[in-house]
């Protein structure tokens, strides 16, 4: 059994670190955008149902798997999974719990560095007096984005200051990780989470009290109309599978389930310590940040100045950088500066508490299996992140960034969650699993969850997984019906371009790697896929070596 070098300093520290892991940029940017794109008030009900039937069960599963593995000296998912089933395959399935984090942290640290830069830009009042288009163009300049000079030619992005900010952000992350769980991650969570809440409450109050802004020629420029759109219940949309899939998907991302970070953090919880109440507290804290604060900032403020139609058309992740600084500047220099600091500071804290969590599984793995020290593990992690991140920075504009997000931030999560719920409920067994969830519990977990975890949650996730694999064009209820009709009559399927099958085989596009002697965007995207695949295979090989090492150690102990 590997020697345990890490431990949590306090229960509150653990909960704040877990909540910090879950609370990310998505709480403030992805959730409101998803809600807007899926009918506003119609989105909230499927979202809450998904939280209760899939989110909470997955939290309990991951916390208990982590503690179960940790008690046996395993702090990374390959060997946590390995301790729950004798079949070797599960160790390799567990590789997803390290791979996903390496993939996501690479581009996530880059976004985190934007928030850090923009906090300082806000302090320096860099956006003062700029028009909306100038603020938007300032971001393009910062990220080195420009249009390709001609057709297929690929524009390489080389944003010097963005790279400097990225390196600083990466160094901060690696330094904190090198200080360990209680000395680094936990200390940061204890400072970052309260500040994040403070900044969030400040901005939410400002947004809710904004009301009609009196922008000339804009009758719908009123923050209350934004809130109205987000919260007006539209029950007729509940039959739309697209809304349900989007809501379930959001629950996945927001709780950071299916990643391996929760397992890793929970692996340092002692055998008879509570996990049921801890998981509930961290999970609901994330929901508070998302539903109460996340829904009350971006959309109401944007509707207040741009109108409801503009927001419906343009709501996106990039609004955080391309639009919000302009909107804050409408409040005068002092409030604009304070709001800019609060907004980008909040995003930075949300980002860093998540990226620290994503760095931990790799470190736990190499510390457990290869006996590396904390500093060595952290530095090597930093180098891996750097290697993986550079393509997302240099080829940001042609979509390498999105490629990483799709494969590691979307597909891997669903594969991993599907596998872990089957392993926990059906292979490890629900009776043993229930004992793990309730052991040392400080709350009574409703027994209905024994049934939900065994039957409802796996079906829920399988439906999401299969739907993501074979999603038809547009994905509305009527499109699914038409797709099945087409399959029965013509034997073909109208693949959506973002379905997994379509993405793997490039079904909706011609495979052209070179044109007129130059590499096409598809070439760079496919190379980034190859890089990610190599990372997965490399990690699998490390797991293979670690298994061999463990066997040899066990043999030498016997002899």
């Amino acid at each position, binding site marked *: 059994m590997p020697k345990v070098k890490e431990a949590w300093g306090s*229960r*509150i520290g653990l*909960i704040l670190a877990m909540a910090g892991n879950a609370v990310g940029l998505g709480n403030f940017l992805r959730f409101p955008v998803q809600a807007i794109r899926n009918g506003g*008030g119609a989105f*909230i009900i499927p979202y*809450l149902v998904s939280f209760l039937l899939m989110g909470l069960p997955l939290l309990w599963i991951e916390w208990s798997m982590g503690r179960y593995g940790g*008690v*046996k000296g395993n702090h990374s998912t390959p060997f946590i999974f390995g301790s729950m089933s004798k079949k070797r395959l599960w160790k390799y399935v567990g590789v997803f719990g390290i791979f996903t984090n390496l993939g996501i942290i690479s581009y996530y640290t880059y976004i985190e560095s934007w928030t850090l830069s923009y906090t300082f830009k806000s302090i320096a009042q860099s956006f003062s007096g700029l028009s909306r288009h100038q603020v938007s163009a300032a971001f393009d300049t910062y990220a080195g984005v420009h249009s390709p000079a001609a057709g297929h030619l690929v524009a390489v992005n080389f944003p010097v200051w963005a790279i400097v900010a990225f390196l600083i952000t990466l160094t901060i992350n690696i330094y904190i990780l090198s200080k360990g769980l209680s000395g680094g991650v936990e200390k940061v969570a204890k400072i970052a989470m309260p500040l994040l809440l403070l900044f969030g409450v400040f901005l939410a109050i400002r947004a809710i009290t904004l009301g009609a802004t009196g922008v000339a020629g804009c009758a719908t420029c009123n923050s*209350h*109309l934004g*809130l*109205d759109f*987000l*919260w*007006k*219940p539209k029950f007729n949309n509940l039959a739309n599978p697209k809304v349900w899939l989007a809501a379930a998907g959001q629950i996945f991302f927001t709780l950071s389930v299916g990643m391996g970070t929760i397992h890793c953090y929970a692996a340092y919880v*002692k*055998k*008879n*310590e*509570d996990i049921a*109440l*801890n998981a*509930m*507290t961290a999970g*609901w*804290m994330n*929901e*508070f940040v998302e*539903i*109460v604060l996340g*829904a009350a900032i971006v959309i109401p403020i944007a509707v207040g100045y741009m109108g409801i139609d503009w927001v419906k058309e343009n709501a996106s992740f990039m609004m955080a950088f391309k639009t919000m600084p302009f909107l804050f500047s409408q409040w005068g220099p002092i409030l604009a500066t304070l709001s800019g600091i609060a907004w980008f500071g909040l995003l930075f804290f949300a980002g860093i508490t998540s990226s620290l969590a994503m760095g931990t599984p790799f470190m736990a793995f190499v510390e457990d299996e290869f006996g590396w020290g904390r500093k060595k593990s952290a530095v090597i992690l930093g180098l891996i992140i750097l290697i993986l991140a550079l393509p997302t920075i240099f080829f940001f504009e042609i979509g390498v960034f999105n490629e990483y997000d799709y494969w590691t931030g979307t597909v891997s999560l669903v594969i991993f969650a599907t596998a872990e719920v089957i392993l926990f409920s059906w292979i490890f067994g629900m009776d043993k699993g229930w004992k793990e969830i309730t052991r*040392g519990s*400080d*709350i009574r977990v409703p027994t209905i969850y024994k049934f939900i975890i065994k039957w409802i949650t796996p079906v829920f996730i399988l439906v999401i997984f299969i739907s993501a694999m074979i999603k038809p064009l547009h994905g509305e209820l009527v499109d699914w019906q038409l797709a099945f009709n087409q399959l029965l009559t013509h034997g073909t399927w109208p693949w959506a371009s973002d379905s997994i099958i379509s993405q793997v085989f490039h079904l909706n596009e011609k495979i052209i790697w070179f044109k007129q002697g130059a590499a096409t965007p598809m070439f760079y995207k496919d190379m980034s896929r190859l890089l990610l695949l190599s990372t997965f295979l490399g990690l699998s090989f490390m797991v293979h070596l670690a298994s061999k090492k463990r066997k040899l150690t066990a043999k030498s102990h016997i002899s």
Partner: protein
Amino acid sequence: MSTSALIFMVLVQGSVTLITVYFFVKVLKTPKKPDSDEDEE
């Protein structure tokens, strides 16, 4: 803002806030268990 939206918002946000505070207070009020890290299996 319409009445139905206001009611729905207050109901959902109020419930989420109360539940979050309830669990957080429960964590703070629950006494620490004595250390018992030995493996029983």
